[in-house]
């Protein structure tokens, strides 16, 4: 067991390093560098001035040199400066990360709080048509594009209630109400996918559990159905849900990237996109690494939890 954990943990570091090298190289594959983007297609600079500007931004030297400069800084916590405004990348990320994390957390919350009861209900009422209904609902849920849903929600709230979410980001510590009213629509948009998966998951495991012998025995003994459901079945059925949740964080992070654009939230996803369009190499590298680190860590934790729950896995 511990060998399993150790092996998985040890793999994290080489993976991160590999990812950092891959990103570093790919970023420099981009056509056009930051000077091109900033100048636009309107003005020209002489090659000497361009070289000078690149040097000013630390873009001179061979790839190996540049990578070494970046990596050695990174392990000390210095992720370089954004080439657009010379701000330290680490502080930019520090400001952006909580926003995305809050969004992902809220979405997960909604998905679980709505998905689990739905799954339970649909498992418990097992008549033929509701079987189809549940499946169809689940399939629809995973088919809706989050960015479309977000637009529809915005349209709906503005038409039906005359309400639009606040325009500028407010920290939850400053004004929780305004913050939540800004996050509710984006969180809802990306939660639907996960909600559908959770619902199907819960339904599936509940069905499995409910058909087991000890449940039938309890029913036969006259234990009220509801107690059976909540005491025995649900507890067992929830275990795989926990692991699903872990995996879904990745999906939610991806979804967050898109809805941040729509709702103007300055989170990591928004940051990554802006960085790509402005060829802001240090920011692209750092943001990608951050997302990778978060995601890998989450997966690792989930794998470990899974290993505990199902020792068969750890052996294989």
């Amino acid at each position: 067991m511990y060998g399993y954990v150790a092996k998985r943990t040890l793999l994290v570091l080489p993976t991160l390093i590999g990812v950092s090298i891959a990103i570093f190289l790919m970023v420099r594959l981009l056509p056009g560098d930051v000077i091109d983007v900033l100048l636009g297609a309107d003005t020209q600079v002489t090659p000497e001035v361009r070289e000078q500007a690149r040097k000013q931004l630390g873009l001179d030297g061979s790839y190996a040199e540049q990578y070494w400069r970046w990596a050695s800084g990174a392990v000390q916590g210095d992720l370089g400066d954004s080439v657009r405004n010379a701000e330290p990348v680490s502080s930019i990320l520090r400001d952006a990360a909580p926003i995305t994390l809050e969004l992902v957390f809220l979405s997960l919350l909604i998905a679980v709080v709505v998905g689990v009861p739905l799954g339970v209900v649909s498992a418990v009422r097992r008549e033929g048509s509701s079987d189809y209904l549940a499946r169809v609902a689940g399939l629809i849920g995973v088919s809706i594009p989050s960015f479309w849903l977000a637009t529809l929600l915005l349209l709906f709230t503005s038409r039906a209630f005359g309400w639009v979410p606040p325009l500028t980001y407010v920290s939850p510590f400053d004004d929780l109400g305004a913050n939540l009213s800004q996050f509710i629509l984006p969180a809802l948009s990306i939660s639907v996918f996960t909600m559908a998966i959770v619902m199907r998951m819960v339904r599936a495991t509940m069905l499995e559990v409910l058909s087991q012998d000890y449940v039938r025995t309890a029913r036969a003994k006259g234990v009220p159905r509801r107690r059976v459901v909540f005491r025995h079945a649900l507890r067992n059925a929830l275990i795989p849900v926990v692991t699903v949740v872990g995996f879904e964080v990745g999906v939610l992070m991806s979804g967050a990237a898109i809805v941040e654009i729509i709702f103007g939230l300055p989170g990591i996803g928004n940051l990554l996109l802006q960085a790509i369009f402005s060829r802001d190499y240090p920011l692209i590298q750092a943001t990608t690494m951050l997302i990778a680190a978060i995601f890998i860590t989450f997966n690792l934790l989930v794998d470990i939890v899974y290993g505990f729950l199902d020792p068969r896995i750890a052996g294989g």
Partner: protein
Amino acid sequence: MTFRRRPVLAAEGVGEVAPTAWSDVPRGRLDFLGRWRNPIGLVGAAIVGFNVLVALFGPFVWRIDPDEQAAERLLAPSWDNPFGTDELGRDTLARVIHGAQVSLQVGAISVGIAFAAGLVIGLLAGYYRGVVDALLMRLVDMMFALPGLVLAIVIAGLLGPTRTNAMIAIGIVITPAFARVVRGAVLEVMGYPFIESGRALGASGFRIMLRHLLPNIGAPLIVLVTTYLGTAILSEAALSFLGLGTQPPEASWGGMLNTARAYVDLYPWLSIFPGAAIMLVVLGFNFLGDGLRDILDPRLGPQTGGHVATQK
């Protein structure tokens, strides 16, 4: 992440699709029609078929040029323009039809890339095992370092935002799923006793493995392809929406949704039609995949859509 077996009912968010329990898949029993036990799969097939027809024949039936700015801008839906016109006076219906072509093309090619790459990787890793396997699996692991769509964004963004690069990006992102299934199947087959004896007799172990592999892998691969076609189309829409895929002025559903954002309060139909198209197509593929899974092994029970970390 290694190829370990997960319990059959475990719902995966990360691209693992039935049949996860490899040994549960019935071999060679693909009598389709008798096994359509629910209409969901049929509905899905109908939707997908309709979409393909629209993509192939749409421009011949509805002859307006999607790029031509012939009409007045921002007209509401009418007989002349059933989906209205957009901000430059182009017919939205024609653009939605063109978007269908774009989506199917991107979907097919990226799944094709993933299929081919996954097949090669899976075959090599499973057959040769050892160092080759370890290396290839590390490579696949690295692709799991980022959530699917984020990886697609990074790849498409860094290769340069074009439709071709979006196809490559999506293809790369879904390759691991194919690779794993193939590898799992190969490993299974490799465990059969007669493989050893076949090799002892001098016959090419590889060919023997293939002969035993192919009939067994057909069904799951079909399900995989169907499911990921929906996924790929959704990803293409997302990338275009972000400006990283098909570039304007070419019509693509995601791109149309993006430009429609600015006009959503006064001209909502510009958002409604392309978005509905995306949802319908993805739904069709998901329904179809669900139905196919049903045929292959009803015992597997209700799976999740298997829809995938990549797509949102």
